């Protein structure tokens, strides 16, 4: 955190000053470790084993915050008899389908829930990254569940969880992660001792956690711990995602993602969502508790915002105009399609995949096989100049004279040259004022897309083709101003907020939205940001003049709530758990919820409220159900549906690992998304042979001095000089083993690529003792590329493409490699080197490790505990 989010780290230092203990878990000793009270080195890709060990520690020692757990989580909920755990199935859950490597989730359900409650087919869910829809709400389940509040029922979630994590002992944590037991126990003791009624503990991760083939389950495990310890919905608690880009939260809320529409509405699927009704029902899931019951309203408002007057009840609000998904259309699938010549044109909007995406060579070869490419950026980045300066020029894989891609580079406006809002990592929208005009031809994306749309609509104005109706009927009237005819960002924000169609009054809350076409709103969770016609995101009442919650600085979705599910900061009766941790509580005199934050609960629903039988939607939420967007109102220790790789997190090895999974016969995530494209060859891992050809684990992350793919830091002089060269960090032991010398060159080799870097031999890296072996880890920054003031080879070139099944995010935080002293070979010699490695690691053809390994005869060793 000190490394990548230094200014956020001030609050950790503040907490430390007041006595908080800081633990830091990282494959290498970073600037954060330097300030932590305890540092735990870990083998990259084994976090579930560590966190699972903590879950076991809590459950075995009954250190959970029992009152919270019983009341607010699904610990008491009883599961169906059909459920089988990984204990019984060598690392798979019940319902695994070998043919498409996905789960039939019906056996995971709660007791009494109908079989058909499970919605869409899980393979489709994987292909469409359906897990992302749950960023704002839980997956669908029925509201009423069978419970045993004594937590003794053998099939209640609490007992199931306990059995699932029984094998994650301190010894096992040490065996898998390389973390000594004493250190592990120090963490467990501190975490549990600092959670409960009077204290809360916070789990902070940076989004490298998401870049794993089991990334979602990493975060799930953290959430389970925090729920067990009563650290969710309470001040000083929670699971804090430190996201890495100014508006990456906004980019998912108002997504530019293939599978989502604004407000986490799913993009329609050709088979599952043929009509508006089927689309809406798949979201709201009739019978489910909570605010998703109003999905129709949210959907209709979006359609109304898109197509304005053309959208009417009679034509299902132009639902038919929507393009339909048929499967995975994600960025990696697109790139492979580019290589195969299936994509004509590509827009890159402030993004540099030639450096920033996994498998840089695939990215560049894909871009070299387009008809046209539009790059909009501040600087001439690698993704604009791959045809000229890319590493494939040297190997002859790209020949400029033979590369047909037509490239348009359009300069972009910087953040001070346009107005607009960013949504930061805590869902807070902050408006930026425009300081100056952009230089020369530089323009905002708002300008570019508004005018591109305008030109396209003008071209089509006489078209009679049905396909063009969606463009011609589009509500595309935004006021413009200034010499460049810049569209008004506030007008767009107003549309996002939503308004009454008649009269145009901005809506103040999504509860004001109607499903009859009388209101329109582009993103329901953002409704209220333009309340009373005031840009709430532009509020800047000084923090010093407000409470610590600072509700009048910017605006947070939903409804300006700063801590989600903050009803949980009060006990079931609505009283604060303790004076020390008081946050939101029920005021019996005024008969309303009150506190420091906007209560994340219906303001006047008393703690004693119990829903009438068979109620659903908002009315189904009881007065002591804090998790109002979950189908049962509870925090999920166990996910009966919605998480595609299992209802409980389970340790699987990274797709590329030098280690056989010590916990189960199943080696890696069996449901991960696999691309069997010839360019995407992967290193072998146990139980396959030849994994020793790539004996080392490598991981990548950020340096304080640079930003992601470097487009905003390698080009900036005062930053470039602070970290001027690509380097790789190795432990002294690995340096001896491989003959690496401080500040000399080394090159790293995977089945995809070889890159070179300067060597930093440092005591900040340590070898780990894993399962009786010594495992060496290497670390690289991923900021470097071949353009800019400072250059270096790109760490992301080393990775293959393997994705998490829930959200289709790539495993780009861990892989295996070999490392050799000296610079890498050049030109054809480089290709020969890679061929040689592939030959030694199996065969020359593309290699994809098997997804299921439970039936592999396991070299005589019984892996079961």
């Amino acid at each position, binding site marked *: 955190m000190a490394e990548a989010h230094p200014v956020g780290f*001030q609050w950790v230092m503040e907490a430390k000053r007041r006595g908080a203990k800081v633990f830091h878990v990282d494959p290498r000793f970073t600037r954060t470790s330097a300030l932590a009270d305890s540092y735990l*080195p870990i083998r990259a890709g084994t976090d579930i084993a560590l966190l699972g060990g903590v879950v076991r520690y809590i459950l075995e020692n009954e250190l959970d915050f029992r009152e919270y757990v019983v009341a607010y989580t699904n610990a008491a909920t009883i599961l169906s008899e059909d459920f089988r755990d990984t204990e019984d199935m060598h690392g798979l859950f019940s319902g695994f389908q070998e043919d498409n490597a996905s789960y039939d989730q019906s056996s995971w359900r709660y007791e009494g829930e109908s079989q058909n409650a499970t919605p869409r087919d899980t393979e489709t869910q994987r292909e469409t990254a359906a897990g992302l829809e749950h960023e704002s709400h839980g997956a669908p389940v029925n509201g009423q569940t069978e419970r045993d509040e004594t937590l003794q029922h053998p099939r209640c979630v609490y007992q199931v969880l306990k059995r699932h994590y029984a094998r994650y002992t301190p010894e096992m944590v040490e065996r898998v992660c390389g973390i*000594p037991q004493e250190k592990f126990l120090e963490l467990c003791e501190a975490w549990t001792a600092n959670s409960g009624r009077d204290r809360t503990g916070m789990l902070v991760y940076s989004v490298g956690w998401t870049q794993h083939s089991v990334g979602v389950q990493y975060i799930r495990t953290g959430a389970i711990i925090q729920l067990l310890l009563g650290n969710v919905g309470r001040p000083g608690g929670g699971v804090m995602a430190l996201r890495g880009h100014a508006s990456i939260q906004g980019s998912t809320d108002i997504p530019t993602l293939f599978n989502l529409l604004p407000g986490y509405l799913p993009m329609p699927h050709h088979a599952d969502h043929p009509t508006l009704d089927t689309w809406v029902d798949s979201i709201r899931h009739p019978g489910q508790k909570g605010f998703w019951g109003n999905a129709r309203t949210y959907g209709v408002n979006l359609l109304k915002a898109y197509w304005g007057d053309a959208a009417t009840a009679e034509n299902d609000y132009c639902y038919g105009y929507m393009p339909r998904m048929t499967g995975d259309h994600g960025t990696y699938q697109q790139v492979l399609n580019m290589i195969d010549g299936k994509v004509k044109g590509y827009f890159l909007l402030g993004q540099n995949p030639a450096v920033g995406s996994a498998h840089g060579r695939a990215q560049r070869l894909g871009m070299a096989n387009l008809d046209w490419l539009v790059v909009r950026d501040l600087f001439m980045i690698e993704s604009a100049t791959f045809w000229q300066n890319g590493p494939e020029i040297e190997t002859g894989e790209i020949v400029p004279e033979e590369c047909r891609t037509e490239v348009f580079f359009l300069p972009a406006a910087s953040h001070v040259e346009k107005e607009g809002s960013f949504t930061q990592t805590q869902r807070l929208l902050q408006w930026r004022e425009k300081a100056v005009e952009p230089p020369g031809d530089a323009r905002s994306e708002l300008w570019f897309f508004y005018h591109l749309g305008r030109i396209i609509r003008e071209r089509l104005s006489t078209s009679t083709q049905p396909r063009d109706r969606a463009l011609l009927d589009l509500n595309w009237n935004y006021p413009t101003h200034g010499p460049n005819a810049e569209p008004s960002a506030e007008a767009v924000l107003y549309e996002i907020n939503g308004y009454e169609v008649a009269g145009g009054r901005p809506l103040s809350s999504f509860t004001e939205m109607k499903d009859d076409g009388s209101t329109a709103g582009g993103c329901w969770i953002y409704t209220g940001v333009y309340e009373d016609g005031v840009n709430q995101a532009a509020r800047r009442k000084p923090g010093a003049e407000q409470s610590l919650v600072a509700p009048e600085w910017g605006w947070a979705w939903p409804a300006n709530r700063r801590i989600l599910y903050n009803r949980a900061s009060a006990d079931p009766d609505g009283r604060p758990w303790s004076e020390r941790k008081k946050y939101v509580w029920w005021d019996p005199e005024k008969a309303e919820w009150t506190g420091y934050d906007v209560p994340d609960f219906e303001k006047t629903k008393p703690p004693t409220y119990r829903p009438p039988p068979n109620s659903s939607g908002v009315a189904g939420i009881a007065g002591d159900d804090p998790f109002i967007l979950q189908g049962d109102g509870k925090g999920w220790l166990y996910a009966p549906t919605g998480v595609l790789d299992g209802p409980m997190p389970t340790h699987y090895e990274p797709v590329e690992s030098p280690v056989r999974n010590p916990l189960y016969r199943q080696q890696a995530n069996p449901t991960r998304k696999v691309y069997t494209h010839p360019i995407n060859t992967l290193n072998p891992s146990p139980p396959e042979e030849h994994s020793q050809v790539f004996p080392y684990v490598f991981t990548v992350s950020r340096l304080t001095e640079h930003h992601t793919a470097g487009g905003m830091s390698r080009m900036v002089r005062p930053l470039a*000089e602070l970290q001027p060269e690509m380097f790789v960090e190795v432990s002294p032991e690995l340096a001896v083993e491989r003959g690496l010398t401080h500040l000399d060159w080394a090159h790293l080799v995977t089945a995809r690529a070889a890159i070179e870097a300067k060597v930093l*031999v440092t005591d900040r890296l340590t070898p780990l003792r894993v399962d009786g072996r010594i495992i060496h880890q290497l670390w690289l920054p991923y900021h470097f590329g071949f353009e800019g003031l400072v250059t270096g080879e790109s760490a992301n070139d080393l990775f293959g493409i393997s994705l998490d099944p829930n959200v289709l995010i790539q495993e780009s935080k861990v892989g295996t490699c070999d490392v050799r002293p000296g610079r890498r070979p050049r030109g054809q010699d480089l290709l020969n080197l890679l061929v040689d490695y592939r030959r030694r690691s199996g065969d020359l053809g593309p290699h994809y490790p098997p997804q299921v390994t439970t039936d592999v005869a396991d070299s005589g060793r019984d892996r079961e505990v």
Partner: protein
Amino acid sequence: MPHVNSLYGPLDPAPDAGYVDPPPRMGFFTDTSVCIGCKACEVACKEWNDVPTSGLDLLGMSYDNTGALTANSWRHVAFVEQPRSAGWATPAFEHEPDGPPISPETAAVGARTGTDTGTDPGLPPGSPAAAARMSGGPEFLGMPGAQPPGRGTGVEQRTDFRWLMMSDVCKHCTHAACLDVCPTGSLFRTEFGTVVVQEDICNGCGYCISACPYGVIDQRKDDGRAWKCTLCYDRLGVGMTPACAKACPTESIQYGALDDLRERAAARVATLHEQGVPDARLYGHDPNDGVGGDGAFFLLLDEPEVYGLPPDPIVTTRDLPAMWKRAGLAALAMAAATALAFLGRQP
């Protein structure tokens, strides 16, 4: 009339420099125990003061690629890797299969790297042995073990590890040699008690550079003048905080009235001692030290020289009266010798 302590000893420098009723003396307290080495101070300083680039070479001195305070780097964050206890923290690599530490050797390699800082003398190469000592301690023997880690001797020597970071800056001495030797009055004492080079005056004589006991001030090559931290004199004048202190995320760099800062610092050291960090000590806070106390002082976790600071600097001008006396005697001797030589018998 000049104060009796005008050259040495405790002194309030602004009245001594002719300011009647000056504002309180302002300064920095840099608490290295909370420094995260982010280098925001370096960048914020460069942005505000338009300081040019200071070189693009990887120095291999841990994460320090700036190397030193120069005319083109007015803040410099030092990074020291040490296989030693951090005091408050659990030993970092306890029970890990660690062999002997490499830090002394890598530091030694780092001693010899260079970068063209665009300044003179900028960042001269150093002595590898002294570099190794910084990261090794007296027991350092020099060679890493050839055994695989966790085997062999069984002696795991780097269970403890700490990474020291420290943002260095001009000390704004009470007795500032740079200022006193400046022949043009370019270097002057401001009403805030800080020491500033006036860029419209400096003619690049270079005297200040040799005079500084901390090796702070330096000459810009393409420009010829001497440059260093001004403690953002222009910002101070309008009641603003210096750029580096304002940016510092963790309040490692604290700006304020020197008296307040000294109190805060003393309390902080006491707290750290209570927390089991006996290494914590102040540096440059004492008005009775060799420079009359620094306007920018530090809380350190190791000996000053490990951070590149002199352990006991004394302002050279302390001895100036004695020097003039010796020069006077020598001048007399010279005159006398001449007189003697010419006296006496004509040829």
